[in-house]
């Protein structure tokens, strides 16, 4: 298991190199000179040339990229072109805000999404199921920045219950300011979690072991939680982890709508001013959080499903016997 985790973390390296190289190249191809941003329009030609030399902008693309990666390996993410402050500090100071928002959204999505999904699967084609299905479809189709604006109109401007912008300082106003952005981000994810739960539970419901469990006289609630949900959990974990990974990278649109001081808005500002080091830093944060969440999902599978766990343990044996043995092993443990 640990070997597997280490292997997956090592696999992150080529992905990161690929992602950073890709974005770095795109940004370098831009017909645009960052020096004018740093020094302003009034700078002399000489000062601009010195600055270019200082930043190493006169070097060829590949040299600049290698230099960037070299600095990165020493923990140096570079300085923002615009503010001249270290990118790593700026991102790290905003990251907790994004984590907070992402976690609240995820809690909303999971706490509402999974029970709703189970209920609508168990009462398939009932009124509740139809309402939940249509509601889910609508929520998935809604651009979440628009939902954010609608919530602002209703709860901040018309009813004046909640603040429309920013992040509160003291606990009470912090919670108040969290509500609208979390609902905005959580609704769409809740809908996808619900849809996934519904279809996954519907699939497990028809399995023979559910009838077996029922005929053994196990209480229906226990059948639902221990037998149905547990077996239906894998795709739900996948989708939740993926969405959480996306959220941790910062959501540019929702953070912009609510002026939330997170990494998403930082990245958007960086993109608008073409602040290469700041964009690169945000991109790295995004891809790392996304990949780690993916890995976490794979690890969670093993805890939920003993069949998958046994695969990790018997991997060596299976490797020698090649894939047919692995399939056989899977069936045997199932």
């Amino acid at each position, binding site marked *: 298991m640990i070997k597997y985790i280490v292997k997956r973390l090592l696999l992150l390296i080529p992905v990161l190199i690929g992602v950073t190289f890709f974005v770095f190249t*795109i940004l370098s191809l831009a017909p645009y000179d960052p020096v004018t941003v740093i020094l302003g329009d009034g700078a002399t030609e000489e000062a601009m040339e010195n600055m270019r030399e200082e930043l190493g902008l006169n070097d060829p693309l590949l040299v600049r990229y290698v230099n960037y990666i070299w600095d990165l390996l020493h923990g140096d993410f570079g300085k923002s072109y615009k503010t001249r402050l270290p990118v790593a500090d700026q991102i790290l100071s905003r990251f907790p805000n994004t984590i907070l928002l992402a976690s609240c959204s995820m809690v909303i999505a999971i706490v509402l999404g999974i029970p709703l999904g189970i209920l609508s699967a168990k009462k398939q084609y009932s009124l509740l199921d139809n309402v939940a299905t249509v509601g889910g*479809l609508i929520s*998935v189709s809604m651009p979440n*920045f628009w939902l954010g604006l609608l919530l602002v109109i209703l709860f901040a*401007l018309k009813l004046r219950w909640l603040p429309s912008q920013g992040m509160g300082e003291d606990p009470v106003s912090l919670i108040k300011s969290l509500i609208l952005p979390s609902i905005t981000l959580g609704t769409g994810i809740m809908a996808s979690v619900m849809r996934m739960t519904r279809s996954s539970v519907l699939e497990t419901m028809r399995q023979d072991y559910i009838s077996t469990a029922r005929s053994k006289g196990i209480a229906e609630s226990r059948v639902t939680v221990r037998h149905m949900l547990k077996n239906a959990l894998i795709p739900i974990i996948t989708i939740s982890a993926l969405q959480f990974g996306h959220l941790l990278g910062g959501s*540019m*649109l929702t953070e912009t709508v609510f002026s939330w001081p997170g990494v998403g808005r930082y990245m958007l500002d960086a993109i608008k001013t073409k602040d290469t080091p700041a964009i690169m830093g945000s991109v790295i944060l*995004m891809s790392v959080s996304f990949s780690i969440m993916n890995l976490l999902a794979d690890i969670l599978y093993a805890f939920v499903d003993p069949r998958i766990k046994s695969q990790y343990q018997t991997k060596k044996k299976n490797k020698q016997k090649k894939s047919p043995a692995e399939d056989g092993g899977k069936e045997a443990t199932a």
Partner: protein
Amino acid sequence: MKKQAAAASGKARSLGADAWYRFKKNRLAVISLIFLCLMIVIAFSTFIIDWATDSSFYDAKVIAQDLRRRLEPPSWEHPFGLDEFGRDMLLRIIWGARYSLFMGMAAVFGATLLGGFLGAISGYYKTADGIIMRVMDILLAVPTILLATAIVAAFGTSKVNLIMAILISQTPTFARVVRASVLTVKEQEYIEAAKAMGASDMHIIIKYIIPNSLSPLIVQCTMSVASAILSIASLSFIGLGIQAPMPEWGAMLSNARTYIRDSWHITVIPGAAIMVTILMLNIIGDGLRDALDPRLKN
């Protein structure tokens, strides 16, 4: 599978006709399809109007400002109300449909061709598989909106760049879908039979593999147009897509944000247009998936 369904209904039908028969039973999906077709026709007719009137109608009604009547709420005369510059919202929504629909479709069409090609090759040839799929994995690790943003930020905000950005960010999804179905189709006996008869690789791919991996591709296309439309609107909303005064829905929302305290309809209506379009595409996509998925056949 085909045989089973044909036997169940008592009469032989092709896979396409069979799927269409099942799709027709899904009333919501059929209504959405009709509505979407109507929207496409209306959006297309704006090009004809522009061409016939030499854009004078567009300039006078969709772009020209009338500041005396700004932010007028919906009325009989203007069912969607007037926007922050006194322009009719209904006309702007109609003219805006062409950006979302046609640009979204163009991007997805390109992504289908490119991703489908890459996916077919990497599914069929083991040697190419590693390289192509690693590149696709890297592209997948970058969220769609970020990738599109980076491309647009670097190359400027033109319509072509916007389409290219969305095309590139959608390509890996298609490559994966096609690769997965090619991998399953490849093992089928009829492929072996074709090989035994001496068919060339190209012939097998075009004649057998592509038609047999079409159904997941069709479903993915529908869903992808929805997400492409969302990307266009999102990019325009943050000022990196279509720019004002062009009536793109996301750009309209972005302008509406400034007047959110004064007027609700200019925020609600463009967003509702985006939502309805995406909703219809999702319903059609769901319907198609149910219709094309052989496991759901009874």
